């Protein structure tokens, strides 16, 4: 029995391996889609920019300052800082910006209600009157051209959501930030862009992102029961026939976690939210009657399953060892060792090829040397994601409630 489960796991890992290689080769040699990036002259629509801020005194002034300097027609851009129950100086900082730019910033101070970014955004929607809504987390620093770049895809009536590229700013701080820089490069430069090229399912990231208000309303608004409102939104838009598009050249700086505990909490939240979405949308996406194409169904399902792969891999490792020591036929001796080695080296590590390709596409030469150290980040992620999976499985027994972990900031306040 164990051997067949192991075979099943290896098969699933092989599918993800092929997917990773396919994406990487597409990114390196395929036709690259950037259909909206050249739109530089247009009748630009009114836009609301929501800035999610919960205890963001260290960073919120940076993004508000940057948004005041973006290139967008005067009077068509409204910034709404969503101050979600902050207990630090966030409110004071926001209000000082409002005093300086009363026509361009309208704050939303939230003092109670359900926790979490989705709940805050949901409440803040009462202030939104524009068809195009952009969303930023408070630690982001948009460049001057970014707003137009993120708005341009909404001229396409099929587009419901837009996602830009996230670029870490605090790269050189320590080993973790350097590893996260590589991971982000692989995830956006290769993975997201390949999905865009192949007309699959680029993921809405909930920051450096946009959504069409009518599409959002059509799919029921923000889901405040989701830990990853962005993944949740991606799938609801998809099922309703709206496309989420990725703009690789719409880059924006962010701050990545600088300590391992913060990183672990962040990745655990992502894993739980993703698994939530898998349970909610997995089967309906694959087999339901809706407007997604067959390739979107397959890719969307695989995307939903990425965080499930960590516990699956752990189970695979344990099973492989057990099978080896049991001497189970037909997998024994040298064949078992080779199988384990092969799937560990080629299967799980296909993502490393993706990251190496991303570094090459970014023309960053020396940081690629750090590639072997990604094993460390990989092992930590496997442990964190598996732990998140176990705690999620145990939640009905332990009675754990919905809990949102805010990612800690490290930047020195200005």
């Amino acid at each position: 029995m164990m051997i067949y489960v192991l075979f099943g796991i290896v098969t699933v890992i092989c599918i993800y391996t092929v997917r990773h290689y396919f994406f990487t080769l597409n990114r390196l040699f395929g036709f690259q889609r950037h259909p909206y990036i050249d739109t530089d002259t247009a009748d630009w629509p009114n836009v609301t920019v929501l800035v999610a801020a919960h205890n963001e005194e260290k960073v919120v002034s940076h993004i508000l300052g940057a948004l005041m300097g973006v290139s967008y027609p005067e009077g068509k851009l409204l910034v709404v800082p969503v101050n979600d129950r902050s207990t630090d100086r966030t409110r004071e900082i926001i209000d000082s910006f409002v005093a300086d730019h009363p026509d361009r910033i309208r704050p939303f101070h939230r003092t109670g209600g359900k926790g979490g970014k989705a709940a805050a955004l949901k409440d803040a929607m009462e202030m939104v009157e524009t068809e195009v809504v952009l969303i930023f987390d408070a630690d982001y620093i948009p460049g001057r051209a970014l707003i137009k770049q993120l708005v341009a895809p909404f001229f396409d009536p099929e587009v419901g959501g837009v996602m830009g590229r996230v670029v870490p700013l605090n790269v050189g701080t320590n080993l973790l930030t350097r590893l996260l820089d590589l991971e982000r490069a692989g995830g956006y430069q290769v993975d997201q862009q390949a999905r865009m090229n192949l007309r699959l399912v680029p993921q809405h990231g909930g920051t450096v992102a946009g959504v069409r208000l009518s599409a959002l309303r059509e799919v029921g608004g923000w889901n405040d029961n989701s830990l990853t409102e962005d993944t949740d939104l991606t799938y609801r838009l998809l099922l309703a026939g709206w496309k989420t598009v990725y703009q690789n050249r719409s880059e924006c700086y962010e701050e990545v976690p600088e300590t391992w505990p913060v990183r672990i909490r962040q990745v655990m939240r992502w894993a739980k939210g993703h698994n939530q979405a898998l349970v909610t949308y997995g089967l309906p996406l694959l087999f339901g009657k809706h407007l997604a194409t067959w390739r979107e169904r397959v890719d969307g399902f695989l995307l939903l399953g990425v965080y499930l792969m960590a516990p699956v891999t752990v189970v695979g490792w344990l099973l492989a060892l057990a099978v080896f020591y049991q001497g189970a036929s037909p997998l024994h001796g040298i064949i078992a060792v080779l199988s384990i080695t092969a799937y560990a080296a080629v299967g799980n590590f296909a993502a490393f090829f993706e990251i190496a390709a991303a570094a090459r596409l970014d023309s960053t030469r020396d940081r690629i040397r750090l590639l072997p150290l990604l094993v460390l980040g990989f092992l930590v992620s496997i442990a964190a994601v598996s732990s998140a999976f176990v705690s999620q499985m145990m939640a009905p027994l332990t009675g754990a409630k919905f809990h949102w972990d805010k990612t800690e900031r490290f930047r020195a306040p200005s």
Partner: protein
Amino acid sequence: MNPFLATVTLVLLAAALFTLPLLPALYELRRKHDAEPLSVIQQYAGDIRHFAGGFRTYIDGLRQPLQECVASGTSARGTLRDGGEYLLLGREDNSCFNSAGVMGGTTCPLVIAAGVDLVLPSGFTFIKEIYASGQFVGGEESTYRAILGDKNVHLQRASKVMRWAHATGDFQVDHDCDLYGRISSDGDMLLGSGCTFQRLNAPRIAMGSAGTKVESCRVQPSDAAPNRQAPEEPVRRRLIEGDWEIRSGEVVIGNIVSRGKLHIEAGARVCGSVKSNGEMVLDADVVVDGSLISAATMHIGPRCQIRGPVIAEHGMMIESGSQCGTAQIPTTVSAPIIDVQVGSLFFGTLWAREQGRVVPSR
């Protein structure tokens, strides 16, 4: 061999083999050769006039000597701070470009700044930027790196611009010119048949020669759209699986998204935006009040009017008499390959990533 020594050797050897691939990583981690954030453009807003503005700043220091040259009706040569040589022209005389002149050949390696009208000879290659405070007229079959004209710019037959050109006034390009990079104008732009281009921007861009009659459409789509909704009111979307046709003379209110090919027959009107995931064909006299997007190729027939952005992911053909954008609402027309017929008219940006061509009308 001593078993203890053998064990220690084995362990050390294994440790060394394990560490070896990590050495470059540890070296980079310690030395931080490449630990800066990826360069993300923060201040540049994508303005087509960016290089022209940069060049204007670059030659700021030449303004005073240029005025002196104009006042005295002389020319002068000198060296800029970065070592680049320049030529200042204070009179309307291009004798210095003749083979017997100061250039001594058909290649000009100097930055040129003219304080008066500048008429350049034919067959020259200018490998540095040119500034003209008066009218600029370039000779036939000449090649320019970049041109900044404070009045009108006129490029004669078979000229080439390699990087950028900007006219504060009108920009006229005669037939068979090749315009690489960014070409912009604050006034009208006119491109002759056989010209190729990449990125054009002007309030009004007409295709044809100076004698060609290129008229704006009399009926503006936005004005004529029946029951046009307020800008912030969401427009109803109709999603169609597979191919679709909009019949001749039909008026569609709302956005249309086709997952297949889309054919809009002559005289139809869409009060909204249109998207097709397959080939899109517009017959003659079609009016689209919003944007027009094709994930494949697009063919816009004669005398069509499109108000919003026009985007095709693979290629686009726009026939004579068609108009994209309006004088009040300029827009972008973008595709890797764009063929535009003589007699078509654009307001705003025309951007062909690979190549745009002005072709004769049928």
